[in-house]
């Protein structure tokens, strides 16, 4: 059983756990897989920009991201469940983002 099959099986399992009312077709599973790979690839490329801070830190972070991505392999179903249309959920993320933005600007003004 190849790595692809493992990922696919886990994606289907998590989807069946996640949304029972939604039929699991090949299209949805492959779309999930595409989104997964896109996510990981773009995050990896984005992490390369850490080299501007320190090259060694970049290597460490890329390794860390790879390991985390392989550990928690189907990230996309969870990510999709996080970004749902529930108002309380959205409100929570909005307030969290407000805090993060304010903190980031104070941090950045001191350190960048």
């Amino acid at each position, binding site marked *: 059983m190849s790595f692809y099959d493992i990922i696919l099986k886990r994606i289907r399992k998590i989807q069946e756990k996640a949304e029972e009312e939604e039929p699991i077709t090949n299209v949805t599973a492959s*779309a999930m897989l595409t989104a997964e790979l896109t996510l990981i*690839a*773009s995050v990896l490329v984005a992490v390369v920009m850490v080299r501007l801070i320190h090259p060694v830190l970049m290597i460490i972070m890329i390794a860390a991201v790879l390991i985390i991505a392989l550990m928690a392999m189907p990230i996309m179903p969870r990510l999709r469940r996080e970004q749902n249309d529930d*108002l309380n959920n*959205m409100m929570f993320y909005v307030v969290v*983002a407000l805090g993060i933005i304010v903190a980031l600007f104070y941090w950045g003004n001191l350190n960048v």
Partner: protein
Amino acid sequence: MNANALIAVMVILPIASALFLNLLHKKDRTIKILAIITAIVIPIIPLLTPYGSHFFGGYVPLAQNATLAQGLPSLITGTQLFQFHPGVMYVFTSAQQLMVFVLGLITFFAIFTFLNETKRPSGVYAFLMFMGTASVSAILLSDDIFNIFVFFEIAALAQVGIIVASGIKNNYETALKYILLGNIAGPLLLLGIVILLGVTGNVNVTDMIFTFKQGYVDPNSPVILMALALIAFGWLYASGLPPFHTIKSAVYSKALPHGAALLQAFSVFTLVAIGIIILRLFSYNSFTNIAIIGISVIAMILGITMAIVQTDYKRILGYLAVGELGYIGIGLGLGTAFGITAGLFQAVNEAIITSFLFIGFGTVLYKTRTSNTRKLGGMMYVNPKVALLVLLAGLAMAGVPPLNAFQSKLMLIQAAIQSGLPELGIIMILLSIVTFMTFMKAFYTIYMRPKPKELEILDNKIPRSTVISLVALLIICIILGLFPQIATNSLQTLAAGLV
């Protein structure tokens, strides 16, 4: 004093015609004629308006007011008091000309398709469209940051109204969510604005920059950082970047196709306008650009990956539109003149292309009354011409030459490489490939695959006006793709002024 009245007309005419349309209720024919005339006039005004600035009420700065300026003591003429803008000021340069023109054009196509797809145009829908257009053009033009806040609120209300008037299932829920979130973001944006007001003493952006430059206030004081963070938060809400990308895509998917085309133009131009204000005010703070780039990258990744896993094609388009906003943000965040030009050019292109896509896919909704890709299929045989147009729109969004997004994305990638961040270029290429893949998935499931048996296709033929709008938008895409300097020349001056 160069008080240029036509600049104010750009904002006043849509509002006036909107209120007038609301007055004559149930007179459909009159409303149609009037709305079409207004929609034709709105894009024409910016082309006729000479560049300059308009001072409401004629409150020009003392320096420009010859009658008051003479005989003033030197303690006034010597200080900054001589330069201050006492009234609300609208600035109109070539960049604003292009953007207001494109916004008016999209408004025209939206109104055009709306009037021909609906039997009874009377009601608040055209009113809301014109109000939104007026407020977004005011946001683009205004140099007074509180004026921007007021029109930000009006635009939010107009967007909520457009959702409510659409009559799609569950649109009231989405409208309520949007306006509740807006009631958190709006006051916080106002808080940031008034913190700036309290520190610098006025709400005019030019004067604020003057006070920063002259060192009357310390630009790095923590209070101004708070203002920067709060204004950035309001900017996220207005433009639909994360964490607001879910609600924004839901808003697009709950509006009628022409309404969605207009809504995404609103958010694109609001993003550009408030982003330019942020860059003008805070570009001395080197973290601002980094924050804008980071938020844009997150928006691209989240928007496009979420678009892949959707099943409602309007939601797919909504997430794709949010993801495409990230390109603009990266262009603005790069901070170089070339990068900002590329970002503004991408903004113009994306506003055109996404409305093209929304109106094109709207024909499917018009024929089948469903937007679920699982239930759809075989639309290619129903109307192959529209299918071809929609395919061309998807190619344009993916950035295929000779269409316009190719030029702007190429410029963005060049700018990213020039400013020493080739990774951003790689991410942009990767994500535009995935964008095209997502679009092709939706296109295949809707148009190419065999038609499901339970799908019944209504026999109301697509109005010719919709096809005309699609062809016109395609022509604009090709023109901008072949001669990008039409747009870039008029955007360069603004971009050069920002760095």
